């Protein structure tokens, strides 16, 4: 087994544990590279089937190509898709002009919380990775959230030998993180090896491309001429800039992500 085989095997093991343990399980699909890799891993774990719904929390500020890609892939992969918007907040005019963190909280965190409550999810699969930023680096693979989706990060349950947390009071839910142990380079190397189709936005047009995909107003492009996965891998080898440098919400203050994530952000 090589490095990617080991990462893949561990992720599949985690996905299967989640499927076995949670009656109500859903996977968050942000259309980005990480969650698209997870979709692929789920297909592998369940031999071509996807035995749980995929959830897209739509902020309506997503880049249009992402929505087109989402709908096409959902058909091709034959997956059940739940699209949810925090309509109330949108009707009240919520947008990044109200403050980036306020907007993230309303449209993503609260939107997600609404989905959890509505469908009574016990388990939510998310494609976060330890190398993304500090508070994620401290995450567990099975990470409990209370009924308000809050994360009690200073008092996390022990997790050892792949015996995950599967007992919790009703109303709480578990965030399952199958690719927590991957890094950005692993993701690209895996996409290259498995030939996974991605939304075009990752590939350079007119000297620019997205390295990380979020909402249009808060995600910047980087200068790049990489038009293939192999070229992206080459580019990453030679960069020292952090992956999420283009994500505005991370830069707001030193603990912005910690605060967002404490309240239930992905």
């Amino acid at each position, binding site marked *: 087994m090589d490095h*990617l085989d080991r990462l893949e095997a561990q992720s599949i093991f985690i996905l299967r544990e989640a499927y076995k343990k949670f009656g109500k399980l859903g996977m968050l699909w942000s259309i980005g590279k990480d969650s698209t890799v997870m979709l692929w891993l789920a297909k592998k774990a369940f031999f*071509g089937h996807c035995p749980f719904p995929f959830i897209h929390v739509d902020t309506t500020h997503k880049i249009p190509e992402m929505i087109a890609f989402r709908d096409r892939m959902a058909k091709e992969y034959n997956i059940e898709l739940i699209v949810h918007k925090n309509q109330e907040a949108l009707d009240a005019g919520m947008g990044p002009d109200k403050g980036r963190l306020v907007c993230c909280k309303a449209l993503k965190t609260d939107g997600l919380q609404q989905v959890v409550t509505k469908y009574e999810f016990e388990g939510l699969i998310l494609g976060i990775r*330890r190398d993304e930023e500090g508070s994620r680096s*401290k995450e567990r693979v099975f990470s409990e959230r209370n009924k308000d989706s809050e994360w009690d990060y200073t008092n996390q349950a022990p997790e050892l*030998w792949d015996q995950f947390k599967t007992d919790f009071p009703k109303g709480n839910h578990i965030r399952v993180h199958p690719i927590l142990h991957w890094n950005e380079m692993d993701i690209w190397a895996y996409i290259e090896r498995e030939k996974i189709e991605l939304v075009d936005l990752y590939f350079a047009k007119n000297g620019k491309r997205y390295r990380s995909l979020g909402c249009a107003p808060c995600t910047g492009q980087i200068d790049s001429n990489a038009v293939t996965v192999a070229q992206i891998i080459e580019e990453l080898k030679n960069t020292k800039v952090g992956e999420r440098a283009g994500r505005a919400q991370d830069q707001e203050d*030193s603990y912005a992500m910690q605060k967002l994530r404490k309240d239930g952000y992905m």
Partner: protein
Amino acid sequence: MDIAREVLNIVVVGHVDHGKSTVIGRLLYDTKSLPEGAIDRVKKIAKEKGKPFEYAYLLDAFEEEQKQGITIDTTQLQFRTDKRDYVIIDAPGHKEFLKNMISGAASAEAALLIIDANEGIQEQSKRHGYILSLLGIQKAYVLVNKMDLIQYSEEKFNNIKQEMNEFLHSLHVYPLKYIPVSAFHGENITALSDKMPWYKGEPVLEAIDLFEKDKGLEGKPLRFPIQDVYKFDNRRIIAGRIEAGTLKTGDEILISPSNKVTKVKSIEYWVEKDKTESISAGMSVGITVEDEFFNQRGEFISHTYDAPITADTFKASLFWMGKNDLVKNKEYKLKLATQEVECEIYAINKVIDATTLENLENASQAKTNDVAEVTIKTKREICFDEFKNNQNTGRFVIVDGYDVCGGGIVTGLAQERQSVSKFSKQDDEIVVKCFDEYYYVLSEGGIKKVEGVPHSFNIGDVIPSTGVTYEYPADFNVVDIKKRLVAKIRKSKLQDITSFDECSYESIPSIDPQGAFIKIHSAEDFTKFAIDLAKLQQSENSKIAAFANEWFDFMKFRQIRYLNETKSLEIEYQI
């Protein structure tokens, strides 16, 4: 990136404030493994907080951690040398966060134990050393840190080395190296320090490349715990991760503890390029088998010639991290590989203070942060190995309430092994002797009983309906007249156990747990039997023989065979 590269997980442990996070931060900094801006961000935070710069902030990401200058939870970072990739795991040193230290250390293969040269060996230095030995981490270096505070003194370094060696050796932990360092000042981290010319070894960065990785588990006996069984399409796929060994299409396999034998029909895959005829340790796989038994999560697949231990009582060493004490006679949940079973602590043989190594014999409870030697009894039989033979299938966790509260390793079997065979369904249990064999032994001139290998049969398990000296039909009932329970055997499998009161006449034979035919031939017989049984229960034991003589025919399904002598009379079930 070269994907064929080796990866080694190293955990950094030791007493609070001895410099674990600083060692890692400095290693990352000196090897230029940090993304742009990381150091600037830490400088900014230090300035905002009005504190001096700390490398530890690179790992201690939470605001609470930076404020208090303490690691609360474990984290993992990756970096690389020319030789291989590393996952370096930071563990908290504060006693209160031992559960987080263990969460981090449990996935490591090697360890760096940090000791502050100025403070010397402290409580958690020892406790962490003990935990390493329990986790089976044998590759360890001791880093004597903050050498700057003791003027880089060789003598003090040697004193610490001697004292720590004494402690660790008694735990069978043998540190491969002691390295004097000053993490904050970068001495002996990536390059040899000119402040300590007396040190003749390698700097940390070179030393970790010398850790030899464990050999793969592919060559060990096959252990494939069933994780789940899928029936999404016309395939019935048994899914799971291979914990040890190698499995090929066509291999004969044994499924334990139900004792079923079948063959691997196919190895399943989704994308064509994953097609294979051979799978091995570490892989998450799916197979189909030739005989479609009822399989379920928790069962172990092995080769027929190398089965795991099946038992319901075993000895273990465990560490306890629960808020509530670990006590005897309380119901806990035990998780071992994919098995989950209720268990109780049958005996606490010893409680050990992990820092003084003082023993408390026959204690009645273990407190948080204690280490204990216990005997555990599970509600039904489970499969496992001794930890020394197979780490993955020799360790388990104990859940109390909602949380994992203890972790343990199997050190051996308890003396009191199961000695009888039984049918069981949750709390209902019928002890059976119907699979015992009877021989007339010519050399001894008498009849001798040979007991079957003790085994627990659960619902769905195939039972040995044909022996050497007995033969039951495929469908029959076993009536336990004392417990008023009936075990229903259908197609030679244990289908159900119900109360006698819920049963009515069926046109198939019934036997008692000894194997005697119960002379019920009609519905009237059944009614009379029920009445007699009710009467029997109200009278004394002396009436049992009369009852048995009236109703039981011991020889109907049995015969007594001749044997020259009673050599090699151990019988195995042929199923």
